């Protein structure tokens, strides 16, 4: 007995559909009832939202394809201008309506043109009789296009006077879409996150042909035990499952353990999965490298991740420039005297603490500082005399292109440019250590 009941479609198709969309039965059945019969007019627009990889795209695609409904799929990130988007829809529509392939691209600049051309394309009887579904994936991009595009799609049915339904797929809620000029409200449908049980069910669904479903399900169970706390992304989990499965099978292949010996298999895989969580999941090392390590049966220790190469080698004066910039960013300008004047007298921290300065500057983040202050600090922290040569100035610019400093305000402001230092305390300490400069002594926060 199928979950879905619909007079329009044969039972076999519905059964097949049900097997294709595990854990999404209720959403699919409400979709089916919204769609109605083929020739029925449906909602003008349907808005489907849910978190990353909650099966939105997959479910819609499967439903439309299994039921053989005329539809077209457009990814809004890929069509980054409204023109590209509209033309893409029209081209796909051409392919739908006629057998002759590769109709020439129709130039379409405005939504008005689009409506006109859309009417022309859907004139054929075939498309007149049934609802055409336009699916706009990653619909949040529509908000960045012209103001009329989103409201236009919402009531496309009305404009074109055709049997058409626009389906929006998005990761954010409808409230963030609603234009302030008002619009036709779509029918919204929420796809909730998969629970751990759902994930278990879906992931075990696609077990490798060589092994039994139970064996793979046990593996998935272990995998989810490790990864569920950090990752609920189905795609990512499936990827990780595929990457580590060979390792899991190893004892079985070698004949050391039977498929049912779960405890032994668990012992074998658990530490391996934990290591995977720290490396390959974070993309510290690539999947292909991870596979290579598994094949060679080596320890991943010798292969350093991306974060291990944090050290940056800089020219001597660039180091001091960066240190000076860091000091200028995190010390209040008033305290420069205290740090860089020889006879500053004994000023205690409490004496010139203002109320708002009691919070750590490091918690507040870097503050902008003018070029002059940077140079003044530079001259006082470098031992030998530094001439203000063109090279020094160009070094400041290179530090900006390296994103170690950022320019505050506009690029074209020539007089009195302001900068911020964007490097972390650890980074600057490592730099300062290489030039034997005790930076902690010069930081107001650590006084």
């Amino acid at each position: 007995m199928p979950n879905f009941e619909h007079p329009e479609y044969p039972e076999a198709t519905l059964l097949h559909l049900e097997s294709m969309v595990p854990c999404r039965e209720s959403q699919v059945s409400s979709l089916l009832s919204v769609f109605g019969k083929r020739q029925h007019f449906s909602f003008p627009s349907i808005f489907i939202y849910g978190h990353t990889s909650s099966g939105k795209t997959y479910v819609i695609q499967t439903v439309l394809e299994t039921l053989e409904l005329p539809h077209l799929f457009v990814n809004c990130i890929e069509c980054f201008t409204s023109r590209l988007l509209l033309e893409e829809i029209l081209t796909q529509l051409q392919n739908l309506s006629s057998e002759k392939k590769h109709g020439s691209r129709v130039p379409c600049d405005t939504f008005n043109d689009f409506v006109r051309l859309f009417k022309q394309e859907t004139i054929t009887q075939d498309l007149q009789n049934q609802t055409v579904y336009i699916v706009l994936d990653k619909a949040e991009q529509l908000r960045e296009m012209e103001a009329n595009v989103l409201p236009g799609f919402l009531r496309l049915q009305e404009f074109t006077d055709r049997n058409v339904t626009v389906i929006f797929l998005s990761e954010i809620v409808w409230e963030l879409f609603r234009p302030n000029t008002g619009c036709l409200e779509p029918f919204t449908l929420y796809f909730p996150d998969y629970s751990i049980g759902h994930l278990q069910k879906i992931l075990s669904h696609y077990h490798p042909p060589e092994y039994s479903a139970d064996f793979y399900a046990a593996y998935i169970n272990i995998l989810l035990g490790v990864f569920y706390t950090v990752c609920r992304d189905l795609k990512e989990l499936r990827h990780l499952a595929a990457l580590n499965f060979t390792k899991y099978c190893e004892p079985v292949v070698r004949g050391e353990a039977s498929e049912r010996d779960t405890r032994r298999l668990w012992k074998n895989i658990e530490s391996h999965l934990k290591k995977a969580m720290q490396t390959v999941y974070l993309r510290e090392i690539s999947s292909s490298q991870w596979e290579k390590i598994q094949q060679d049966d080596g320890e991943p220790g010798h292969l350093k991740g991306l974060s291990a190469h944090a050290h940056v080698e800089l020219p001597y004066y660039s180091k001091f420039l960066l240190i000076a910039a860091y000091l200028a960013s995190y010390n209040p300008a008033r305290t420069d005297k205290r740090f860089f004047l020889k006879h500053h007298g004994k000023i205690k921290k409490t004496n010139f603490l203002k109320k708002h300065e009691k919070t750590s500057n490091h918690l507040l983040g870097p503050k902008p500082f003018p070029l002059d202050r940077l140079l003044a600090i530079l001259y006082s922290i470098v031992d030998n005399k530094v001439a203000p040569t063109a090279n020094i100035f160009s070094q400041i610019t290179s530090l900006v292109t390296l994103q170690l400093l950022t320019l505050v305000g506009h690029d074209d402001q020539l007089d009195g440019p302001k900068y911020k230092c964007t490097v972390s305390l650890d980074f600057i300490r490592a730099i300062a250590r290489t030039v034997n400069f005790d930076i902690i002594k010069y930081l107001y926060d650590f006084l």
Partner: protein
Amino acid sequence: VQKGEKLAHLESQHLGCFVFKPNSKKRRISSTAEGDYFSEGKNDSEDSGLRFATCQLLWKQINSEMEKIQDELNKQLFDNLINFLRQSHSEFQTESTEWMCRMKSSEIPTAALVLGVNVTDHDLTFKSLSEVLQDSITPYVVSLQAKECPGIKHLLQKLMGQLMNCYVDVDDSEEEECVNISQKKMRCSMASLSQWYKDVTKKSGFETSSKKRTSSSRHWQSPPIVVIFKDMESFTTKVLQDFIVISSQHIHEIPLVLIFGIATSPMIIHRLLPHSVSSLLCIELFQSLSCKEHMATVIDKLLLTTQFPFKLSEKVLQVLINIFLYHDFSVQNFIKGFQLSVVEHFYSQPLSVLCCQLQEAKKRINSLSHNQCENIRSLPSFRRYVESQVSEKQIALLTEDNFLKEVTQTLLEDLNSYHENYFPVLRCLHVFTSSLPKYPLGKQIRELHCACLGKRVWETEEYGSAVQLMRMLAKAELVAILQKCVEIFTSSSGKQFSNTIEKMEEFLTRFQNLEVAETNDIQDVSVSSQNELQKKTDLYHLQKTLLELKESKRSKKLTKFEMLRFEVVDFIESLVRSYLTPAEMQTLNEVVYFNTANTLREHLNAAPRIALHTALNNPYCYLKNQTLKSDVGCISNTAPDICIAYKLHLECGRLINLVDWLEAFSTVVTAVEGKDLDSTATDQMDEIIHARFIRAVSELELLGFIKPSKQKTDHVARLTWGGC
């Protein structure tokens, strides 16, 4: 009128940009003018044409050598990258239906290429990289720069533009067709790109089967499209994210490979891309040779060799190395600096005509003009040489050109053999010093080279401590070092080292013999002393012998090993003293050594602020007008107006009151002239002075010293502090 300012401008521009010779191709066009570059007002007796030709030839040799070095250095990195690219899409064609492949998400293969902070060098690396890739992997190599791609649209436009062009490069016959394609306004979307790719690969597939086996056998059926992001740091997050998301949708249709050029550290990838995007990538890390190692190789191959007659003096080398270490880490800039010194040397030194291979130089000596002979006589090093000769020879040297030429020939030979000896001995000494703790003479050979070039190295303190430490080396180390030295000397071309090699090998055999002898010795000593101890049993004698034993330990006689070690060190010292004499002591060193470090510093390490300050503060420096000569600190009224205004503004604080400034200005200007003028003219004068003042002030504003301020009326703000 304001010459000072203009000159200051000119000066700063002159210092700010370095002009190098144009391509030699262009030069050929006006063959008559060839060499004119160097003659400039001097008569041709100084061989300007020949000097120019020599310079050109020399630089060509150096340049080709440099390219060879660069290729060798990059080879390892490029090979790794090529391997990566080969593997990255190996399964692209073989549509495997395996479970594994279906389950894994298809990531975009990405190479994170860490190149170091010397951004100026990257261009060359990327250029040769894309050439190598085009030769061996794929014709479709695209390099993108952040400034060309402010949006995803521009990025795709650039990408497709470059791809269509590179298709033309592969096959000329299809050029017309391609032009047509690009003329039709291409839709800049990934979809049309994948369509294009399908067409292109299908087409080339046909060709391989029919006739063009050779051209496409280098690449395979579906060559990957390589996209190089030259400066990853400067790309905006949005553009990168969008591009990666879009292309990951099409990865099944186009075999795309990304290369991120990273200057700082690979952490930047995580900073730029969120996890949802970076999980679409399969990132592998590649690291290029560090620029310091690169530099060391360049110096080793370029400067520490007798291959090229041209040499840098200690000070010049120091300037170039300082710019490298302190400012930019750029090997390219170092080479440019080296090129500048080559040009400068041949331009400014008439005798540089002799700066070529020895045989050629000898020939050229014979054809030297009288003027050139005089030039030789006026060289300081040559004068030193003359003074050390007997008086008859002195007269002959100073009067007879022919005799002078003969002597010069032998002197040049001496100079040549000096260099032939210098470098092997330098390397040998470096092997010693680089194994010492704390490196008293520097870790790098270039530091040692500078020390030896500049002064008598054996008189320095550092050398003394180095020798001290050398006398404490362990045997195993010493033997290893000696073996290395033998290798150095045998590989060097000079025949005069056969004795040295023999001597060193003798040392080595003696060290080996020592091993056997020593063990016997030690046993003997210990046995005998113990025997003595056993003999004398009473307390007094025991005490005495113990004391004696102690004494003998303190002023212990040197063991054979220690003796030998002393001998070795002494031998090395003698080598150093005889061969590592400073270059300045060599007669005729001016011919091959470039030593005007100041010119080089002025050109390469320009100080625009200082130049501007000098021009405004001391206009005489540039205008050379006697009336402008003035004492430091006082303001002369003959100076250009802008100078007066500038000097006055130096005395002000951050905000300058314009009225006060004007008054001070008019006081200075009228200081002398105002006295004998009657009162009717003063009004008019004032207006003129007012106008002059306003012009001076606006010129200062143009130069960026002041800007109008809104804080106070009639005030301007100073933009500089302290007047440099």
